[in-house]
């Protein structure tokens, strides 16, 4: 589904991604871990097409298509979704109106007619239930005055509504209490299927007890320095990141 080869990118003349390689197939969940500032969010930004990141090398294929050629909105329409680390507030724009616009834009891209109001409402109710999202929040302004946890849960609700092929969850667990964490994870687990895939960016092994990954990668200083299965996450939890950092430092000398 997603094939990243030697991806390099910089922001404001600073090289952030220094050659990322990653292969994600349908039905898989990949976890990306790594210390603060290692480039995890940057990778998400580059994949989704944030303007201030400049790709300086490498390629990304998404379902065989050159992802980097697409505009940010077309990447979304092709089925790429990012649950933001810091979701934005947009005053006055109702959550539901925003979602309907988004859904219909994506449908239009695939030559599908807009969803009828009734059908849209049915879908909304179904997904609200699935990810246990408070119906009151659906009618409020987009993220305006939401608590940190509510914002994160809204990201998962949107994910459920838009039904993307590949979802990137950028530290969706940070700022969630244990109950919210369980609800969010349950939601994601229910959405997992043979047809879609997830990249879960996290600091903590904790989340991976709920969303069990097929693969775990460690990103450090703009490179994936170690890959393994879910046991790697446990090892990181125990030993911290220092033992990962050393070989890289030596290698670069």
């Amino acid at each position, binding site marked *: 589904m997603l094939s990243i080869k030697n991806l390099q990118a910089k922001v404001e003349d600073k090289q952030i991604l220094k050659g990322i390689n990653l292969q994600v197939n349908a039905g898989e969940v990949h976890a990306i871990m790594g210390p603060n500032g290692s480039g995890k969010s940057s990778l998400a930004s580059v994949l*989704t*097409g*944030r*303007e201030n990141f400049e790709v300086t090398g490498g390629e990304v294929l998404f379902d065989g298509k050159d992802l980097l050629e697409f*505009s*940010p*909105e077309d*990447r*979304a*329409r092709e089925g790429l*979704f*990012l649950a*933001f680390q810091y*979701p*934005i507030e*947009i*005053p*006055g*724009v*109702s959550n539901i*109106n*925003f979602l309907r*616009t*988004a*859904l219909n*834009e*994506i449908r239009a*891209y695939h030559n599908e007619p807009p969803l009828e109001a009734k059908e849209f409402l049915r879908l909304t109710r179904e997904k609200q239930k699935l990810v246990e999202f408070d119906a009151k929040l659906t009618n409020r*302004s*987009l993220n305006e005055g939401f608590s940190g946890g509510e914002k994160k849960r809204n990201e998962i609700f*949107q994910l459920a509504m*838009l039904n993307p092929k590949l979802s990137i969850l950028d530290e969706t667990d940070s700022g969630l209490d244990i109950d919210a964490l369980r609800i969010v994870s349950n939601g994601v687990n229910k959405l997992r299927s043979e047809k879609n895939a997830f990249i879960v960016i996290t600091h903590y092994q904790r989340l991976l007890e709920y969303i069990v990954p097929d693969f775990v990668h460690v990103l450090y200083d703009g490179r994936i320095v170690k890959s393994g299965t879910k046991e790697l996450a446990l090892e990181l939890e125990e030993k911290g990141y220092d033992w990962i950092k050393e070989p890289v430092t030596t290698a670069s000398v």
Partner: protein
Amino acid sequence: MANNSADILEEYSDKEYEFGFVTDIEMDIAPRGLNEDTIHFISAKKKEPQWLLDWRLKAYQSFLKQPEPHWQNFELPKIDFQNISYYAAPKSKAKYKDMNEVDPELIATFEKLGIPLSEQKILAGVAVDAVFDSVSVATTFKETLKEQGIIFSSISEAVKEHPELIQKYLGSVVPHSDNIYAALNAAVFSDGSFVYIPKGVRCPMELSTYFRINSENTGQFERTLIIADEGSYVSYLEGCTAPKRDENQMHAAVVELVALENAEIKYSTVQNWYPGDKEGKGGIYNFVTKRGVCRGAHAKISWTQVETGSAITWKYPSVILQGDYSSGEFYSVAVTKNKQIADTGTKMYHIGKGTKSRIISKGISAGQGQNSYRGLVQVGSKAENARNFTQCDSLLIGDRCGAHTFPYIESKNKSATIEHEATTSKIGEDQIFYLNQRGIDTEKAVALIVNGYAKEVLNQLPMEFAVEAQKLLSITLEGSVG
């Protein structure tokens, strides 16, 4: 377009001048210039009674005495009052034979707004067949109103049919000595609307100039007078959302509202005059004086405006809260882009006790547009427990535009409660990217954000109008984000 409005105006009036006007009765346009003869000419053309001519002449005297204002924070273009033609026939001739001759950009905008072809033609100045849909609509409409004793006509008609009402109320809210543009309007006003709602009558439909202006060109010195008698209600819509190309460079309209005891007037405007081109050439100077008076207890006046057009918009719809417990409201969205300037706001004069006012102003600036909110809340010594709430927000798109707020508060009564809130925000790249990431393109994203921002004001408009105004905001801001 190579010509700016001034050139067109000049060319137009020059051409007419060749034929002279004194002897030629077929003549449509007065020669440029303003003096007592011009006023005699206009009044005679309109077959007005002596009292109205006298009133116009007095207004002209006060016009001569008034200085041009210079307190504004933008450069006022020099207006040569002698270089304007002060009378155009009520029915201007169609300028084009068919739609092919009309500016394609204008047609594109009509289409986006979903305006039917027959109306597009009228708005663009294309000749239409004598039988036109809205004529019959307008007729049925008038019948219904007549049954309830509601008067809705042009001012000229009202001068003839209801002179007692005109004499009593014309200039009673905006005296001709009020300001230079109001004086000018009083001296030379061409036409406008007149509304009277009898005691206890709730006007059963939105009254809209739309039905009138389609067939009549009221010109650049429009005058509107609305009277809501005791316990009555009316909602009045001015303008329509279609862009109006107009050769007149300066518009100096006057609107007067009178709400008697327990009466309510809602006045909504969508202003979309020609804003000039990207370089700021051409465009309308829109200098309007709008004021309402709540004359009786518990009367209510509410102004709602969506201002997207004109090169310079300069207006302060105001309410004089004379009756006890009367209330005034002002809801405004003003958009400026390219080199447009908007200086708008309101004045609320609290005179009666327990009077209330509410001001919600939403400025949107894009490009190099400059947007100012200027408002006055004045509480008189007898206005016990008067209350005002003002919310004044500015939204910036890009970093070459500007937003300014000038709230003035003068209170002579300690029991008054006056609240003022102001915010300035920018449409952030983060907001746009967030929406992009959900499959929404930048143009639609801006439209969503702007409409969300303006929602509180748009909600005040009658349903159908609100939908049009939403579309208009989106169209107006197309292409303003990189």
